[in-house]
């Protein structure tokens, strides 16, 4: 309905168009010069993006320099400027540094793992027969489709101390081997989701499991675009699988990998739902920047200013990464 009403004024051109036109030029919409049409079409989208993304983004930066607590939220008092106080307080807090470390280390491990596993599966899919390939694609599609909250639930249950499969599987290891590797033979009741490091291990497994299918399917799509003759020629020349990948596949798919890498970095830097389910909000040692920003802003009593300051740090990191992403996208031209 909105669609019709937005367009109606320009649609008036229909009635006033007298008979057949000779020129190939599009008809002028009534009352609007042709050059203005794209701008008119853009207005609704720009309004939404401006009002709901850009304005809040600017607001967030402003709030990061203000004190916004309960009285300010209720509107009883105007927000007061505190300069850099939010930032200095946040930077003095150990939780900020452990959150930053958790965020960066997690991304540094999860992103390459997802990319390597995804690429390997993509190459595998390309070499499998048609039926087998479809079978595997449908399987990995399930892992990819599970909502993030449900992903967290699944892995929380698998890493459960009492009833989890992970502990059951580790108990299957021969005691000697288990002792040699991990220094313990009995895994019953080991609580994985108490310590920050083991929470992040579970999170890594969860995110890599849910993330590799997208990489695999994208790589497969890229591989299908590479002419088969190139591979046949390589085969004739006696090139091995690894050499073929390094000399043909990787260079040709470089733009694909660049985009996939940046997307994965963005996703893994701001992972929230899975961590929220796996760790909850009470374990401050296990916060990443997303979780820290949100809990700091909404805890009792709320500290929106400090929360915004942390969110600013996260956004700046993501902006730097995205700059590389946008450059890559525009290098491809033909947008």
């Amino acid at each position, binding site marked *: 309905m909105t669609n019709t009403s937005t367009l109606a004024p320009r649609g008036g051109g229909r009635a006033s168009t007298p008979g057949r036109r000779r020129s190939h030029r599009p008809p002028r919409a009534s009352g609007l010069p042709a050059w203005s049409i794209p701008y008119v079409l853009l207005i609704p989208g720009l309004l939404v993006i401006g009002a*709901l993304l850009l304005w809040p983004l600017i607001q967030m930066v402003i709030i990061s320099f203000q004190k916004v607590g309960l009285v300010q939220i209720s509107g009883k008092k105007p927000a007061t400027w505190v300069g850099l106080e939010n930032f200095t307080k946040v930077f003095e807090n150990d939780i900020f540094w452990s959150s930053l470390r958790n965020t960066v280390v997690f991304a540094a491990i999860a992103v390459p793992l997802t990319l390597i596993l995804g690429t390997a599966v993509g190459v595998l899919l390309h070499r499998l027969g048609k039926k087998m390939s479809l079978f595997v694609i449908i399987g990995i599609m399930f892992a990819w489709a599970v909502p993030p909250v449900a992903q967290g639930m699944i892995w929380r249950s698998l890493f459960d101390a009492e009833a989890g499969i992970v502990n059951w599987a580790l108990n299957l290891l021969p005691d000697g081997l288990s002792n040699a590797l991990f220094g313990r033979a009995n895994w019953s009741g080991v609580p994985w989701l108490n310590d920050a490091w083991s929470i992040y291990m579970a999170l890594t497994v969860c995110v890599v499991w849910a993330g590799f299918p997208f990489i695999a399917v994208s790589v497969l799509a890229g591989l299908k675009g590479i002419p088969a003759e190139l591979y046949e020629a390589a085969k004739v020349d006696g090139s091995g699988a690894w050499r073929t990948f390094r000399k043909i596949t990787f260079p040709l798919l470089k733009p694909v990998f660049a985009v996939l890498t940046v997307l994965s970095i963005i996703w893994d830097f701001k992972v929230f739902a899975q961590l929220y389910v796996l760790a909850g909000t009470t374990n401050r040692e296990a916060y990443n920047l997303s979780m820290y920003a949100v809990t700091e802003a909404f805890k009792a009593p709320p500290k929106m200013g400090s929360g915004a300051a942390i969110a600013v740090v996260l956004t700046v990191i993501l902006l730097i990464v995205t700059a590389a992403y946008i450059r890559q996208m525009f290098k491809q031209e033909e947008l």
Partner: protein
Amino acid sequence: MKSPLARRRLGKTALNAAGVLVFLVAVFPVYWMVSTGFKANDQIFTTDFIPFPTHFTFEHVTRVLTDGVAGHSIWLYMRNSAIVALGTVLIGAVFALLSATAVARFRFKGRTPFLALLLVAQMIPAEALLIPLFLGVKRLGLYDQLLGLIVTQVALTLPFGIWMLRTFVAAVPKSLEEAAWIDGASRFTTFWKVLFPLVAPGLVATSIFSFITAWNELIMALYLINDPTKYTMPVALQYFFGQKGTDWGAIMASSTMMTIPVVIFFLLVQRRMVSGLVAGAVKG
């Protein structure tokens, strides 16, 4: 085993075995979620590995459908999620189509900055928007309202919606529109009668993407809604972690119910989502 034929057959078997392994690794956790929802409690709370529910039960499913969480059945939360997701899709689709037509059909000043803006917008973390949006939603009286949630979801899904839809609009041959113009159709008629039907499949794909995103979203729903009768599924699920312990049967039954629509939609548009996400990088 030395002959090339035998070696090739061995290679083929190894590849297929790897394929089956990947399949199992991907599917097992999903299978675990589904099967746990149908296991009796004595089979869930055990240190043994019970591969499939031998004490098969609908107990958890009926429990979450009738009692549910916090005195409300799962249906209520599913309905709330559906309202938010459908509202997001309906509003978002109109805006996305208009903007996508502008960038795909016209070359105008400011087009490149707008495309860059879309890419930047996709990166902005929801956590960063949450604080100002919370304050804004509160000021507008939309706090604790599904409409407030819909508005924020439109914002979060629109940039990618436009980005994805523009490739569909661009794929419609311009000559078709020109033919309509020659026949004296107005711009609006051309848009409605020629472009729209051809872009419809793309609009469906984009809408499904927005639907899934809004259906899955946690942060906004967590902090913009306080009233339990307005919880969405991702928020409601948290309340199965009770003080008396974790109700895994109920969690897994509800998680499965939440996942079913996503999986169905996903299978419909997965290819389009891939090409949308890596558009510009993957040619063809």
